[in-house]
């Protein structure tokens, strides 16, 4: 597909990388020549220098003939203008990054007026994810499917825990709820396990479970349930605002530490119920004074990754039950994963995932499109939700009969709002939504791709990674 991306910043670059890897023809527009140079040398894309909202530049990038325009510059107004121009030029789908909270409310009718196919707000999305994590602090991450009815949650196995050394089939007896382990991360590698898989301490497991049974799952697995009643947020960024709104709404008390006095005033005005502290978040004295020892959770949301990491490590050191770290540079995940930083959110990654899902859905012509897409285990595993339609094969056959491609697992089937954690005797019926877990070296765009007799989807990388067998 032909895609034009305006804005080669954090989100833009990450998107470009992801989408070009999936084989799309991409033109990147930016007004900074240096970042364009960087992109053209590391990614197989074409670049156009200039203001993305100008007609001349859009013509140069051939927007008239493209399928999708994504405006991801740092300015909301520019992004919207880009999309308007693009709509005038051709009939491309348009996605705009709009993140100003003041615009957020009017987005619904703005979308119509501006002809936007999708608006993305990375900060809002990041706040949403963080909030979900704070709801159930035992989980390192939560990804929801089937309109929130099903979730894949990430758990880490502590030493001497109930599950250490158990076979997966045992787990299902212990858990007492209907769950399925769909992926395991061990020493930086991803496994898609079967019933005989034996768990070890320090494994990170990804469990599929119906959302309403998460509480009992935690109880049966003997995980300490610790409800978050007080959250300390370091850094008063936009995410902090969105997050605080939600937390306050859920009755959690929020304390925000922000360095800039003016921002503190703004926050105090917008969030009357939150405690706003003017002080340096990286300053140990300030943290101790504000009671980091006593708080239930710490969320680090400053603009500096380094500061976030250091404060998170310190919070872990002090034994804060739940620490969430915002990190922009996700390249270095492998370094800090072992340092106790395992609950990480990255706005650009969340955004990229949202858009990749949209693009895959656009590409899909048969209608059995990707409803939801989540990447697990450092992007090594993908969990995709499809809807089974008339073109889907093997409808009505039991799963035991259907042969799937290697490295694929059906994690969940939802039928008329009812969640089925599948066994060999279950079937896929028309209009079911199916969550499929797979190692992400192939591009699955259609439910039929997963069947052994289905079409072979394109390789994502052009090479085989030796880490994946």
């Amino acid at each position: 597909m032909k895609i034009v991306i305006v804005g080669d910043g954090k989100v833009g670059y990450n998107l470009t990388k992801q989408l070009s890897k999936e084989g799309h023809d991409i033109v990147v527009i930016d007004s900074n020549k240096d970042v364009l140079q960087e992109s053209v040398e590391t990614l197989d894309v074409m670049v156009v220098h200039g203001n993305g909202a100008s007609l001349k530049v859009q013509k140069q990038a051939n927007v008239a003939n493209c399928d999708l325009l994504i405006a991801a510059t740092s300015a909301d107004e520019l992004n919207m203008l880009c999309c308007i121009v693009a709509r005038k030029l051709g009939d491309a789908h348009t996605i705009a990054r709009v993140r100003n909270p003041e615009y957020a409310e009017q987005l619904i009718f703005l979308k119509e007026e501006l002809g936007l196919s999708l608006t993305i707000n990375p900060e809002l999305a990041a706040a949403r994810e963080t909030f979900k994590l704070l709801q159930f602090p035992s989980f390192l991450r939560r990804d929801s499917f089937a309109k929130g009815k099903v979730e894949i949650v990430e758990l880490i196995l502590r030493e001497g825990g109930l599950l250490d050394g158990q076979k997966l089939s045992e787990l299902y007896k212990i858990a007492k709820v209907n769950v399925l382990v769909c992926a395991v991360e061990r020493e930086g590698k991803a496994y898609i396990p079967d019933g005989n898989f034996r768990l070890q301490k320090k494994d990170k497991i990804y469990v599929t479970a119906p959302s309403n049974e998460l509480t009992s799952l935690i109880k049966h697995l003997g995980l300490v349930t610790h409800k978050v009643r007080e959250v300390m947020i370091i850094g008063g960024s936009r995410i902090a605002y969105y997050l605080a709104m939600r937390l306050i709404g859920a009755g959690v008390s929020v304390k925000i530490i922000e360095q800039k006095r003016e921002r503190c005033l703004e926050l105090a005005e917008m969030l009357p119920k939150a405690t706003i502290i003017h002080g340096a978040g990286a300053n140990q004295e300030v943290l101790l004074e504000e009671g980091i020892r006593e708080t239930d959770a710490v969320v680090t949301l400053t603009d500096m990754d380094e500061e976030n990491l250091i404060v998170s490590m310190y919070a872990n050191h002090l034994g804060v039950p739940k620490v969430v770290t915002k990190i922009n540079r996700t390249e270095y995940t492998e370094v800090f994963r072992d340092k106790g930083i395992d609950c990480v959110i990255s706005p650009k990654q969340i955004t990229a995932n949202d858009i990749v899902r949209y693009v895959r859905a656009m590409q899909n012509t048969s209608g059995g499109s990707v409803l939801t897409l989540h990447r697990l285990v450092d992007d090594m595993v993908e969990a995709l939700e499809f809807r089974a339609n008339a073109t889907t094969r093997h409808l009505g056959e039991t799963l035991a009969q259907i042969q799937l491609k290697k490295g694929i697992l059906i994690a969940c089937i939802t039928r008329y709002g009812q969640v089925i954690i599948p066994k060999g005797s279950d079937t896929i019926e028309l209009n079911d939504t199916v969550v499929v877990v797979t190692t992400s070296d192939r591009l699955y765009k259609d439910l039929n791709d997963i069947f052994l007799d289905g079409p072979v989807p394109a390789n994502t990388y052009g090479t085989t990674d030796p880490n994946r067998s």
Partner: protein
Amino acid sequence: MNYRMLAYILGYILRIQALFMLPGLAIALACGELDAVHGFFVTILLLLAVSAVSFFFKPRERHFYARDGLVIVALVWIVMSVFGALPFFISRAIPHFVDALFETVSGFTTTGASILTSVEAMPRGLLYWRSFTHWLGGMGVLVFLLAILPMAQGSGSSLHLMRAESPGPEVGKLAPKMRKTAVILYAIYCVMTLVQMLLLLLSGMPLFDSVCISFGTAGTGGFGVLNDSCVRYTFLQQNIIAVFMVLFGVNFSIYYMLLLREFSRVLFNEELRAYLGIVIAATLVIGWNTLPLFGGNFGDALHHAFFQVSSIMTTSGFATTDFNLWPELSRTILVVLMVIGASAGSTGGGIKVSRGLLLIKNARQTIRRMINPREVNLVRMDQETVGEDTLHGVNVYMTFYCLIGVVSLLIISKDNFSLESNITAVLSCLNNIGPGLGAVGPMENFSLYSNLSKLVLTMDMLFGRLEIFPMLTLLLPSIWRRASQRGKVSMV
């Protein structure tokens, strides 16, 4: 350095070369030229054997950087030339390896300088191969590789290869995907070559001649199949060749713009205008200047002037007449055209029209700044500001261009030919033209020079075709140092 990737790409190139030698082998077989068959057969086996070794070097990491790109391109061209010379050498058609190498490099670099005293005495299979090297070298073998080989998807590394191989101060993509860009370039190239072949065939040229001459024109090389280049072809055939030479000297992105119907961009393209302007002006002046030689027949004079101007300017080097005998003004114009060369992004050589334009514009801005030091001005080309890096690159390029020229001139002067011959010999090789003046005039050849001089000129051709920098990086020791010796250190 990503040595494994280097080995991997080299292996591919050798296999491609083996494949491309098959038509030569077939022609040699059909003509019953046993020596040539032997030469091709042994070379193809050697190519396959050596390329098989590269199977042991599967690249672990397909990503590579600018310096790897430069080194890969330079080495590929050297290795390709050495293997390409083998059929000539093994078949004993060219008994000395230095000569065979000179001839092959001259082919791949689209120079067209020859050491053969009699072209017609060569076996046809080898003549075909000689002309085909022009065609492959014209657009570049790595660009061909990029068109057929799926590199790591989504990675921009391949741009480094194209940048190092394609001529011009700024190399960009035509399409978002490198592979598509390479395919577009080769598609335009193939179609234009085929059209020329067809036209030549229709004009009554024998099939073998039209194929070889088209290859020579497309790559702007200049190897013919007759001893006296294009003298014996008809007026019409010469004109077809002349027009196609001019066409192949145009930046190929112009053709892509035409395909996209962006006519205004083509019309106002500064390089294209300058290029065509120079061709027309030079043709008119030479036509007027050589009028007496053609007995006052302006049509004839103009015809030969046009052929020669397009042949020299695009750095092809075909000849319809011995321009060595022309008046000084015309000869000097031709030498100037040799240096200017064709357009960037074409198959021609020389310093390129766009580079010349940038040099002049930059010089003008510098002078203006001397007069008015506070003035802020930028160099523009096609209504776009040219980056400092590009201008800097052009200046450095010119410095090295002159340096290499002077050093080569000094070395080959030891052979004691006239200054005119030596200067034009160096210029002709460095700019990938072929013929020069004096002892290396269009009806002469380079066989007079000593082996040392031939090697120097061979290097000049490679320097000229790859635009200096890739070859230069090979001489940097830091390139060859292993990036890290960590493995060994930790074992101690």
